[in-house]
């Protein structure tokens, strides 16, 4: 295996007019282009859903605010939640998996390139369909509008008696489409990982990211059918006249919640594990040490995958399960904390004895670790059922899962952006703008979400479009809204940085971070065929072996 020097094909070769480029994107089956298309589209939805969050925060900035009508507010939090999970989180995972897995296991493309393109287009059209509801879903009065039943769409609020018009149908159908996309993309990543590893790369020599992507994609296959099945049942309720969730006709509202969370809880880990994956690549490189306890990390991830399918009803402690049922789900939830704790300890173990370089990707990882620690501990609090009876459906839960999905998932993904952007576009992101983005986002994040924990303690329920003064929530909500503005500014800085650095950034070279996995052995951006000659590996860190022939990893593994 040797470092490849490969010329980047000139733009003109593919045709450089806008139409040619667009045509190229539409017909491409290249895993790198599709990966970037996934991430680019997800960022687009991220901005839209993020602006909705800002509007939500502005409505709540003072008591009895009249900025948004109740129904507009309800649509916003429904669309915000649905978009962030299905149109931002899921495609970012698919994008990272698509882009990185083939490069990291030393192959030239995914196992099923055409299926890969199909998955992307399903996701895109699903997303557009969801937003088309603003125009195309006539309510009873004939004007279009978006779903307003919450991203969890609890029955029987989604039945035709309570959700007239077609907005709920848009919610169902668009998510069914994106689920098809996620499913084929998951099958593709799994097949690629199992079948296309380069010579010498045994399962236990795969970079941790590839392992974690494998687990995540298995979980997608396991969890999504729960949601899709329930959505089809809901459609049957709404049109042919089924009674699965129709309580007036003896159906069960609780069974929807079970179906939804059998999907919904693994979903949280489906999102978190790829963020763990970014950390597991980035922390070693910037600590200058291999990951501490590689086999334990693999095992802990598999354990998280297994346990996380048995914890779903911890979202339902207040629905009136028996004391035995509540105790069971409390225990399974506590258990999932153990492998999660092991992962945190292993990351810290990797840093100990290292020489930590505070580059941007590492800064995001460090913030991730602090924030994920807190998110984990508030998760433990929520697992204590009696405490949960007070906390569930309050702003404490909002704060808790935004700590996980923003403070951890998003920070992990940002770390990944700063780390792999130079590989994907050949230029480094500007570090000064990056620092500004980091600090604005950190400050904004903590202003918003630290504060909201306390709003929950003070009895503020979720999903309320307004509240009265005098309940101790005013100041907290004001601070939270200021934080949201900081976060929005930070994202603006990131957007500027992404666009500017793509043209003017400092050229990255093959290996700007002095890293160890295969993707850094090829040019930046990699050529269409990734590697001119198929690499052969003898250890988990092929580039370390190459750079340190006197002390290679394969002697110790």
């Amino acid at each position: 295996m040797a470092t490849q020097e490969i010329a980047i094909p000139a733009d003109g070769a593919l045709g450089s007019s806008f139409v040619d480029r667009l045509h190229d994107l539409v017909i491409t089956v290249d895993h790198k282009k599709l990966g970037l298309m996934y991430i680019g589209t997800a960022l687009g939805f991220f901005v839209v859903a993020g602006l909705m969050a800002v509007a939500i925060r502005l409505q709540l900035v003072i008591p009895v605010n009249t900025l948004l009508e109740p129904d507009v507010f309800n649509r916003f939090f429904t669309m915000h939640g649905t978009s962030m999970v299905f149109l931002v989180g899921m495609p970012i995972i698919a994008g990272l998996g698509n882009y990185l897995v083939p490069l990291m296991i030393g192959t030239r493309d995914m196992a099923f390139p055409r299926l890969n393109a199909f998955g992307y287009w399903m996701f895109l059209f699903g997303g557009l369909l969801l937003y088309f509801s603003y125009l195309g879903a006539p309510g009873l009065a004939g004007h279009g509008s978006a779903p307003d039943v919450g991203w969890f769409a609890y029955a029987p609020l989604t039945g035709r008696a309570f959700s007239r018009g077609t907005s709920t149908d848009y919610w169902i159908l668009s998510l069914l489409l994106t689920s098809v996309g996620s499913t084929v993309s998951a099958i593709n990543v799994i097949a690629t990982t199992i079948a296309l590893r380069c010579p010498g790369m045994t399962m236990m020599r795969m970079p941790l990211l590839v392992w974690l992507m494998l687990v995540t994609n298995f979980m997608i296959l396991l969890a999504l059918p729960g949601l899709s099945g329930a959505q089809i049942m809901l459609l049957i309720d709404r049109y042919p006249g089924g009674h699965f969730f129709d309580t007036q006709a003896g159906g069960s509202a609780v069974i929807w919640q079970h179906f939804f969370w059998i999907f919904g809880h693994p979903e949280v880990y489906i999102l978190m594990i790829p963020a763990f994956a970014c950390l597991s690549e980035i922390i070693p490189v910037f600590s200058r040490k291999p990951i501490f306890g590689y086999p334990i990390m693999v095992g802990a991830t598999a354990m998280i995958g297994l346990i996380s399918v048995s914890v779903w009803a911890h979202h339902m402690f207040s629905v009136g399960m028996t004391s035995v049922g509540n105790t069971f789900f409390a225990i399974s939830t506590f258990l999932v904390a153990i492998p999660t704790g092991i992962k945190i300890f292993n990351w810290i173990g990797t840093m100990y004895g290292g020489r930590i370089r505070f580059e941007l990707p590492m800064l995001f990882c460090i913030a991730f670790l602090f924030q994920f620690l807190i998110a984990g501990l508030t998760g433990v609090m929520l697992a204590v059922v009696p405490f949960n009876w007070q906390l569930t459906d309050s702003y404490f839960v909002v704060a808790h899962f935004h700590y996980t999905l923003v403070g951890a998932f998003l920070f992990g993904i940002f770390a990944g952006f700063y780390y792999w952007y130079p590989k994907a576009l050949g230029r480094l992101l500007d570090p000064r703008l990056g620092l500004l983005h980091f600090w604005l986002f950190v400050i904004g994040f903590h202003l918003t979400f630290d504060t909201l924990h306390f709003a929950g303690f003070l009895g503020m329920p979720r999903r309320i479009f307004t509240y009265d003064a005098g309940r101790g929530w005013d100041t907290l909500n004001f601070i939270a809204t200021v934080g949201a503005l900081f976060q929005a500014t930070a994202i603006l800085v990131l957007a500027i940085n992404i666009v500017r650095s793509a043209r003017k950034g400092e050229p990255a070279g093959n290996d700007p971070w002095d890293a160890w996995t295969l993707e850094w052995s090829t040019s930046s951006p990699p050529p269409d065929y990734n590697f001119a000659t198929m690499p052969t590996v003898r250890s988990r860190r092929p580039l370390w072996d190459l750079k340190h022939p006197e002390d290679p990893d394969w002697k110790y593994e």
Partner: protein
Amino acid sequence: MRVHLYGNQLMLRAVTVFAFSLFCIISFGHVDPAFGKDDGVTSIFSPLAQPAQEIKETSILVLAVCAVIFIVVGGLLVYGLIRFRHRAGDEASEPPQVYGSNQIELAWTVLPILIVFVLILVTSRTIADIQNRKPPPGAVQATVVGHQWWWEIRYPELGIVTANELHVPASTGNSHQPTFLKLQSADVAHSFWVPQLAGKTDLIPNKENRMWIEPTIPGTYLGNCAEYCGTQHARMLIRVVVQSPEEFDRWVKDQQQAISGASGAAEDRKAFFANSCVNCHTIRGTSAQGKFGPDLTHLMNRETLGAGAVTNTPDNLRLWVRDPQKFKVGCLMPNMQLTDQEVNQIAAYLQTLK
């Protein structure tokens, strides 16, 4: 020239300050969870009843355990960041490459297992304690039915139906008088949450849930519907009025009285009964027997209109009758397009419902 951040002492200091301030904020919050106590009329950390009191005690224990874990792990992290930071001259060589250690892995697996074991014991004990409590003889039984977006409250044994304000007796030193609630829903899922009295229990159609409260201090306790139930979820407030046993008995006697068919001026009464008010509302003792909206029998005894949307004053009552959508847009009572005279007459009649 590459801009390297890692040699930057300022960056390290900033990271440390960030970690430290985060640590302070969180520890402060966790050590003193009654933060904001003075105006926390719905704080879960100022409980004034069982089971909220018992929940608080468990919660404080869990918060303490979590705070210790946070301090230890966060401390390890901060120490590691400072101790093992990149220093000038480190570029020349790489640190010793360590791949892991099974002993250390074992240690940090067993320790969390022990903590989790303790938490499981505490949790299951409290669950059983609260959920398996049986009503003692003489306990007040009430049924709360959730509607979009108000609460129907029934006392089947006492023959009382009211709305949005649940009256219960206080337990006094020598007599326990808990109230046991049956929770039902007429339409979609709701959740009953009065933080100072108890945790949440959902009201789910086609499923009957139970909960109990045992307050000791008279007063009015505020709560919200805590499960998203549609447009006016935010304006579905519940009040629990805790009264001394004697006062509660008096209230029961008052509520049991039906309204005389001759109350109010004849013109006012006629305006009410001639309009479609009676299709949705009940006034016991009269021909108004509608079931869809709140029972109005003793409307004037209630503090608010529209499930906490506005206070119950004569002016607000008039405005509500004229157009409920002004106060509570989307609520299921439509603007009845009444004339000013009808509005005044109906409001005047309603004010006789004491």
